[in-house]
């Protein structure tokens, strides 16, 4: 018979892996995040089914209690995860700011071009109007002569 913790652990691991595949299918996570969470699911499944891994961890930390070894490992892992996420947020923030700069300049340049073209258009309309007026007055003069 399996221990209860093994059943819960494997169930969680399976849930993580299935959710990971679902999110990938829906394109809500990228390849890098998929790989990370898939690995987490597999490691959780391994720890839930292979008790030898606990003894390995216990000897590594020099403790007699499996729970201390698991807690310490989880703590270190989440610290690393936090650092990774922090780095990613900084990278994304930089990209967002650069994008904001580009958008504002493109918008400004487009407005300038639009203003210029409106100016040119109104000048052309005025020129055409003047030309037409000159033509009309010339033809009137011809008629009167």
């Amino acid at each position, binding site marked *: 018979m399996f221990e209860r913790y093994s059943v819960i652990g494997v169930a969680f691991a399976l849930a993580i892996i299935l959710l990971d595949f679902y999110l990938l299918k829906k394109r809500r996570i990228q390849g890098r995040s998929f790989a990370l969470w898939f690995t987490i699911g597999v490691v959780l499944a391994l720890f839930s089914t292979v008790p030898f891994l606990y003894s390995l961890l216990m000897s590594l930390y020099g403790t007699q209690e499996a729970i201390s070894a698991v807690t310490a490992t989880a703590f270190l892992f989440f610290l690393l995860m936090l650092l990774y996420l922090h780095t990613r947020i*900084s*990278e994304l*923030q*930089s990209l967002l*700011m*650069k994008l*904001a*700069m*580009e*958008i*504002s*300049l493109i*918008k*400004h340049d487009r407005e*300038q071009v639009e203003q210029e073209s409106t100016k040119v258009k109104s000048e052309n309309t005025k020129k055409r109007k003047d030309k037409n007026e000159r033509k009309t007055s010339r033809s009137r003069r011809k008629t009167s002569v």
Partner: protein
Amino acid sequence: MSLSPKVLVMIPAYNEEQTVGRIVKSVMDLHPGFRVVVVDDGSDDGTVKNAAEAGAEVVSLPFHCGGSIAIQTGYLMAARHNFDYLVKIDADGQHKPEEVSKLLNPLLEGEADITVGSRYRTHENNNDHSTVKAGGRLFSSSLVSLFRKMEITDVTSGMRAWNRKAINVLMDQYRERKIVEDSVFWVAETILASKLGLRMKEVAIDVLPRIYGKSKSFSTDKMLMYPVRLITTLIEAVLS
């Protein structure tokens, strides 16, 4: 073809509706040949309207990104539109528009690539009433001077001018780097410029008291975090 240099005056502004129009007008009156751009950092008051009415071009960031991004937007504009010189003054009325020429002269004469307006080069109107702020400025200036073996008295000064070489070199660097915190932007840029071999020169300027509102660069949390950010900037400079 005109032989006069292309100069862009950038005025980054965030909720400065009371002063921005006056600053734009006086820069345009004093220097009719210069292009004046107000980089609006997502203001939610009448800053954009007042700047445009005063005759400035307005570049609006889509949301409040912070002073350093507004300044870098000015660099990007100067680089993209091939300006020969870029001058930055504040929108809060603390910098005198008539001192723009003072900053440009050393650049025009080829004495420097970047000029920094220093309130401590003169003992007249430095308007440094807060001991904490003055202490912070002097401390960071001394640290940078010591660290880079250069003489700078007002490293946090935001009244600066750059020639085309400096703009392009700095833009290349900013493209690759992460965003620098607003409070240490000038410190980081001064160190970067000195490392890149750009020649810097300080010019004595007067700094006037704020006409309206509170300074956005000196909130309590920013002041408390400033030493940490300053040290981080120095460590980063050593490592990079």
